[in-house]
């Protein structure tokens, strides 16, 4: 049986460059939360000339890159359980305080992995129904509270199935919550008129992207190639 979906794109952006593209959205002084998976890579590449406060659900503000082998502090982890370092100006607090900060609107950007994003900006990122049991973690709180949500994901799943949908088919994390989607093919903004393609990865055409997108894309008048 052949796949009903187009071939995956031959030369998508590597994960490192997707993350580098997301990093350009971070500005000095911002509070940023990085979801599990791909977004956590950002912690290691934030430029030294800006001060970003990375927020971790488990009660840390201002953590830094992964700890070097042998220099791990046993009680300093990111929400994924990886040992991280602290930047100067960090603080610890409990989980209720941590999510108070999130719901209270103090997170400027939440960068989250995604399974599906709809043209209305609905996000599904916690459960693949055929696996049966998912993990919500802090994602629902983050999409409810963060000022801006950036979803970062491969443009399609491994079988080529589009992840940018007219409607999500997986259980939702939140409705109308995603502002920007960064994929291995493009950058897409969620507007009140649906999805707008604003940037293309090097070597990717508008057709390449639309072919692999379930929702209809509009084109930004300022459509350009992704910068890193």
């Amino acid at each position: 049986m052949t796949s009903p979906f187009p071939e995956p794109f031959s030369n998508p952006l590597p994960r490192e460059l997707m993350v580098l593209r997301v990093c350009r959205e971070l500005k000095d002084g911002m509070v940023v939360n990085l979801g599990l998976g791909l977004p956590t890579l950002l912690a290691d590449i934030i430029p030294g000339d800006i001060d970003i406060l990375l927020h971790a659900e488990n009660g840390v503000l201002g953590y830094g890159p992964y700890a070097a082998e042998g220099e791990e502090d046993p009680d300093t982890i990111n929400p994924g359980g990886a040992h991280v370092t602290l930047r100067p100006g960090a603080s610890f607090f409990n989980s209720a305080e941590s999510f108070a900060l999130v719901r209270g609107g103090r997170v400027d950007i939440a960068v989250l992995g995604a399974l599906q994003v709809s043209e209305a900006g609905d996000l599904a990122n916690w459960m693949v129904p055929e696996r049966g049991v998912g993990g919500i973690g802090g994602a629902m709180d983050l999409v409810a509270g963060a000022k801006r949500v950036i979803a970062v994901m491969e443009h399609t799943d491994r079988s080529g199935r589009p992840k940018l949908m007219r409607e999500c088919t997986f259980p939702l994390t939140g409705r109308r919550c995603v502002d920007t989607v960064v994929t291995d093919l493009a950058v897409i903004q969620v507007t009140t008129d649906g999805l707008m393609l604003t940037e293309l990865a090097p070597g990717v055409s508008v057709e390449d992207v639309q072919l692999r997108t379930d929702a209809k894309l509009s084109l930004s008048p300022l459509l350009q190639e992704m910068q890193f």
Partner: protein
Amino acid sequence: MNKVFESAAAAVEDVFDGATIMVGGFVGVGAPWELIHALVRHGARNLTCIQTATRIEMAPLIEAGLVSRMITSFPGYASVGQITAFERRYKAGEIELEVVPQGTLAERIRAGGAGIPAFYTPTGVGTIVAEGKQSAWFDGREYLLERWLKADFALVHAHRADRFGNLAYRRSGRAFNAVMATAATVTIAQASEIVEPGEIDPEDVHTPAAYVGRVVRCTTGHNTARKGAEE
């Protein structure tokens, strides 16, 4: 006033069948391992457990078949191939599940400790979490009504404790420990170190003595997180 118990076994001795237990720890950091293992040995059954995840701290209790209901934000791990003890027993119908977003879980426990029986939150509107819940609109936005969570016992790990029950956690060991410690009828704390009242600076107490019923000194070394145990 002396809340120090001689052993973890003595501290969990009156946990009864059907009790509701909050279990601290986050991906193993700040996990009350000695109390967890004492509870496994004690063997109280049909426990309702509240923990932010099911894979690490809960494993000994679930594997021992003591848990019949789980309130958690991470029942499973979408990105991990292997199946956990929880998932196996949940799919076999042996454990009931209530999935709660992590921030709502923290806030419900905080509400239990703070005498707030219910509150409105924006988290989960338009998702399966909203099913069966009242909602209301405030200032043009929809919110869900969530109820407090309380427990018969909370098991927490502190870095330092005194015999009055004052607790200080270390770094991200604070997470859920400091919240759960406020919301149980009997809060049981294991501590790496037990000091005299006054040795923890009054500015550095994270959980005031009023919340804590029992304190036990850890017999093993300091807890460590699982390196890179990414969920």
